[in-house]
C-alpha cells in the first residue's frame, strides 16, 4: 500500500465515522428537528397546555370563516392531515398564499376541547409550479379544483391540453 492510498483510506474512514456519528445524532433528535406536527399526531398525544407547538396540514375546503372583532380580523378554519382535523382560531391577517386546500403551519397552543389558538400562520406551498393561465383553464373546465388536493403533474398537463384539442377536433 503506497502512502497515498493509505492517506486516502484514512480520510475516507474518518469521513465514514463522522457520517455515522452525525447520522445517529440526527436520528436521536429527529422529533425536535420536525418543524410541525400533524393533527392526528397532536390528537394522539396532546401536548402540555402551555407548550407552544406548530400544527401543520391542509386547510379543509369550506371550513374558513372570517369575521371582524372591532378592528382585528378573526379567522377560523380546520386543518387536516387526511386522518383527523383540528379547528384553528387565528386573530390577524392571513398570508397571501392562504386559501382553502392550501398547506399551512400554525404556531400556537392547544387545549383539548377548544380550538387551537394560533399566534402565527405560515403558508406552505408545494413543489408544483403552474402558469396562471393553465390553472385558470383547468379550473374553468372542471378538471381540477384547488380546494381539493394537489394540482396535476406537469406531464399530465401537457397530455390534458392535447386531449382537449383532440376532442375539439373530433367535434
Amino acid at each position, binding site marked *: 500500500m*503506497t*502512502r*497515498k492510498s493509505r*492517506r*486516502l483510506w484514512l*480520510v475516507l474512514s*474518518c*469521513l465514514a465515522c*463522522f*457520517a455515522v456519528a*452525525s447520522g445517529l445524532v*440526527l436520528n436521536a433528535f*429527529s422529533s425536535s*428537528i*420536525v*418543524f*410541525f406536527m*400533524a393533527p392526528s399526531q397532536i390528537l394522539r398525544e396532546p401536548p402540555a397546555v402551555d407548550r407552544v407547538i406548530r400544527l*401543520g396540514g391542509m386547510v379543509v375546503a369550506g371550513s374558513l370563516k372570517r369575521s371582524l372583532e372591532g378592528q382585528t380580523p378573526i379567522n377560523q378554519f380546520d386543518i387536516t392531515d387526511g386522518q383527523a382535523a383540528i379547528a384553528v382560531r387565528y386573530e390577524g391577517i392571513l*398570508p*397571501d*398564499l392562504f*386559501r382553502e386546500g*392550501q398547506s399551512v*403551519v400554525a404556531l400556537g397552543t392547544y387545549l383539548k376541547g377548544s380550538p387551537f389558538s394560533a399566534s*402565527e*400562520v*405560515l*403558508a*406552505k*406551498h*408545494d*413543489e*408544483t*409550479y*403552474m*402558469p*396562471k*393561465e*393553465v*390553472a*385558470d383553464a383547468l379550473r374553468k373546465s372542471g378538471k381540477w379544483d*384547488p380546494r381539493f388536493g394537489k*394540482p396535476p*403533474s*406537469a*406531464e399530465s*398537463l*401537457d397530455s390534458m391540453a392535447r386531449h382537449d384539442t383532440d376532442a375539439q377536433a373530433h367535434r
Partner: protein
Amino acid sequence: MPETLPGQPVKGAFLHRFANPGRFLRLAHWLFPLLSASSGIFLTIGMIWALWFSPADWQQGDAVRIMYLHVPMAMLASGGYAALALCGVLSLVWKHPLADLAAVEIGPVGAVITGLCLVTGSLWGKPMWGAWWVWDARLTSVLVLFFLYLGHIALIQAFDDPQRGYRAAAVLAIAGVIDLPIIKFSVNWWNTLHQPDSITLTHAPTMPESMLLPLSICLTGFSLGFAALVTGRLQAAILETRAEQMLTRRARSQNGLS
C-alpha cells in the same frame, strides 16, 4: 512510494496534468474569457426570460421569478462546497499543489453564493410563507453550510504557516461534506416549511417547460459564472505568487551582489 519506470503509465497522471501552475495559466488563458463570455450570454438571456417572458405562477404570482435566482444559488452553494471538499482530498491525499490555492479561491465565492441563497430565500419566504426566516431543517442546514464556508475562510488565514492553514481547512472542508446530504434530503426526512425539490433525478420535474427552460438557462449561466470566477481568481493567485517569487529572488540576488 515506488519509483515508476519510464514508459510505464504514471498513476494519477491526469490529476497532475494541471499541477504545473504554468500549464494551468496556459489553460486559463483561453478558458477564462470563454467561460466569462458564455456566462454573460446565458445570464442575459436567462434574466430577461425569467423577468419578462416566463409565466407567473398560479398561486405565487410574480414572486415565482425569485426562483430563477434562488434555485441556481442553492445548487451552486452545495456544488461549490463539494468542489471545496474535493480540493481538500486532493490536497491531503495527493498533495496536489494547485488544490490548496483553488480551495482558498473557491471559499469566498461559495460563501457569497450561499449568502445570496439565504437572502433570496428570505425575500421569497416573506411574501409567500409570511416569514423572513423559520428554523426548519432545510433553512438551518443551509445556514450551517454558510458557517462552514466562513469557517473555512477563517481557518485558512488563522495560521502563520500557510501549509498548516491549508491542512486544517482541508479537514474542515471534508468533514463538512456531511451537511450536503442533510441539505438535500432534509425536505424528505423531516416535515419542513420549505417545499420538496421540484427537480430531482428520479422523478419528472413538477414544473412546466415554460418555467423549466428559463431556470435551466439561468442555472447554466450562473454555473459558468462560478467556474469563470474560480478560474480567474486562481489565475490571479498564481500570478501573485509568481510576482512574490520574483521579488524575493531579486532581493536575494541583490543581497548576494552587495
